[in-house]
């Protein structure tokens, strides 16, 4: 396959940035999207150009480090897929592909396609945990958990923190990310003691980071590589409401 890439290049946070066009040839359909970029970068290095900076690590769709807006869609058009798991067989020969970083004010661009997502860590710091120091836990079977609850908690807990939800949201909201953690812990008995204070602290931190509000557009869940359901946001709102009416 031969492709034309339009890639966002930005040397640093203060650079205005621009789209730059590259031609890539002999792309194998079995390549992953990032492997295609690897091949281009190898060429750029040999030509003495600065290769395209992008974040990636596990390349198996679980670490959450990679993420690009591909043809206007976070992680590309294939559903439930991270950028690293996207393969070139889903593109047509001769296509032009536009590649941009996540765009949201709380995710400033570091370089090219690399953005700063530390706001997510700070939302977790605000309350995304159960306070249980090592060694203080009771026997694991002392509290049975309904299978349905454990399964639903897992569905929410599967969030990889990639930030696609924010990039896709017209409001730049981090509601799906925040709600996923709140829902995971709210569904389990272990999460109950801190349930209400957790929701309040995390939502307040999310707002303080400059993320927008949720207007139920649903773009977040559409691009989420792990398919975190939209109703987690209802759970978040419910817990948050309790915090504010007590």
């Amino acid at each position, binding site marked *: 396959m031969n492709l034309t890439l339009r890639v966002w290049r930005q040397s640093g946070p203060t650079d205005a940035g621009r789209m730059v066009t590259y031609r890539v040839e002999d792309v194998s359909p079995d390549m992953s999207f990032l492997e295609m970029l690897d091949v281009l970068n190898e060429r750029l290095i040999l030509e003495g150009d600065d290769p395209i900076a992008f974040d990636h690590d596990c390349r198996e769709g679980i670490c959450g480090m990679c993420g690009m807006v591909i043809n206007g869609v976070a992680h590309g058009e294939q559903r439930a897929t991270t950028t690293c798991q996207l393969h070139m067989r889903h593109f047509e020969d001769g296509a032009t592909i536009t590649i941009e970083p996540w765009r949201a004010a709380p995710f400033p661009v570091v370089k090219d396609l690399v953005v700063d997502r530390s706001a997510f860590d700070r939302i977790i710091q605000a309350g*995304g945990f159960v306070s249980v120091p090592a060694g203080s836990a009771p026997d694991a*079977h002392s509290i049975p958990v309904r299978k349905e609850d454990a399964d639903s908690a897992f569905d929410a807990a599967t969030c990889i923190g990639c930030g696609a939800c924010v990039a896709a949201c017209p409001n730049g909201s981090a509601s799906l990310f925040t709600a996923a953690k709140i829902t*995971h812990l709210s569904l389990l008995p272990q999460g109950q003691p801190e349930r209400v204070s957790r929701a309040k602290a995390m939502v307040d931190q999310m707002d303080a980071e400059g993320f927008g509000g949720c207007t139920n557009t649903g773009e977040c869940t559409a691009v989420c590589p792990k398919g975190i359901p939209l109703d987690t946001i209802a759970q978040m709102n419910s817990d948050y409401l309790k915090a504010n009416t007590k």
Partner: protein
Amino acid sequence: MKYTEGSEIRDAKAPSGPIEERWEKRKFSAKLVNPANKRKLHVIVVGTGLAGGSAAATLGELGYNVTSFCYQDSPRRAHSIAAQGGINAAKNYRGDGDSIYRLFYDTVKGGDFRARESNVYRLAQVSVNIIDQAVAQGVPFAREYGGLLDTRSFGGAQVSRTFYARGQTGQQLLLGAYQALERQVAAGTVTMHTRHEMLDLIVSDGRARGVIVRDMVTGEIERHVADAVVLATGGYGNVFFLSTNAKGCNTTAIWRAHERGAYFANPCYTQIHPTCIPVSGEYQSKLTLMSESLRNDGRVWVPLRKNDSRAPGDIPEQERDYYLERIYPAFGNLVPRDIASRAAKNVCDEGRGVGPGGLGVYLDFRDAIGRLGRDAVEKKYGNLFEMYERITGENPYDVPMRIYPAVHYTMGGLWVDYDLQSTIPGLFVIGEANFSDHGANRLGASALMQGLADGYFVLPTTIGDYLANGPYEDVDEEAVAAAEIKVREKIERLLSVNGTRTPDSFHRELGKLMWDYCGMERTEESLRKALERIPELRAEFWQNVKVTGTAEELNQVLEKAGRVADFFDLAELMCLDALVRTESCGGHFRAESQDSDGEALRDDEQFAHVSAWERTPDGPVLHKEALEYEYVKMTQRSYK
């Protein structure tokens, strides 16, 4: 490569007495630090995977002043996150005959009698606490309808002791540790530095007293001084270029510590995982593992005939060779990883492999789907099947998966004593970065167990003892400055070559060489070849590598070049270690040492020891630590 033999390591500091009392004894003999003094004591933890994340969180909870580093943009991304199958624990919730002793026994045997009994027993003891801790944190383990935890069986065991969270157990356990860590960041006990890479260890008066790191965004070289340093920087499987490790995984932190005096133990022990998706082309950047748990229900086979090009569905039952079930009737598809991997290589070498290049075997779910129904199979393995289809474009519900072995884990690592302290006082090494618990082969679902055992339970006790014995001398400023200069010089050197090959092209070549000569099967000839070729390739690297950009910016080419440079030196030591160990054991298979059935043949007379390598200006020095087995009788492993 020349080496000399140095003094034996006689004391690994395990307490004496009955094995079940040793850890209790050590905990009681460990000195305690007064709570008020803890916050004055500064501990650096490098790496935020299961071991590093849980250690930093726990040390923070105890009140120490902790600084934590990771190269990723968030501590949640460490590669523990990718572990799929599960975590072992001797809970015996099934009542199927499991016990601490049995987990200990299985691990020592699975490790092919090359691990320390005391360490492994402690690991089995602590395993039960890990599950309690993780459940209390809200880790959503799989449960049964009665609300209790579900378990499954895994390679190398005949009991069901593996706890799991669908195919994402590593992710859920890591997020538990990450959340505990972030709680401590909020509490102010842990200072977190993301996108920072450790480039040297500061050793002052013979003690580890800090690290030199590079801020990967600004390029700034920073000095961080502390009372003790913990390395939790993972394994070095990426020396093979293609492995199941994350792209960023590297040996730099432990290698630089080795250069500063920490012994490197058993570098040749590499685990080749039997169930990975085969290579599809030259551009391949990494290999993806399919969890070993699939072997619970999937059946491994190849055609009976050579070069059989029929589609798998067209090959009738009697023309299929379910070779694991045939050769190992007792364990069948659940033999340990090293055995399953070598068996796959053997049938492919016979010309019976499937898929492109004949480098693959089938993992077939037809019978499981017939027996349990498609829904039940999907519930158990849905995400793994999806992952497979995404990568290969084939649907495993209809066509058997194709799998092939790939480098997955390194049992070797920095030598540590019972306290997890290296040969540099004040330098502790935990998780995959150390060598201690898995011997020559790690059993499935034991990596998560070891990482969390070290981080939540072992290190916090033993490092306290070290710190309580202080305070130590003031840090020698000259040692700090010298370490920083060394780091800067190496970076300058990499940038100044301006040759014609990329760091990745060297890495690929080195990896191929290691896979061919020091991979699943090693011979004296192949290892000698590797030892000849590696220095040549390294010399070319330093004359011909091309690193673009500058040191004062985010520069992924520079990061990569530095890591590849260290891989060369490590590769050489791995081959030397493999050459010296003329026996076969676990993941280390020397073709010269096999029995009449082609199974690995140990040589306990000569090699029942840990090989701990010291790096000196005159070349490597080998220190042996004899392994004694008081409880588990050394036998030739048999899974037949």
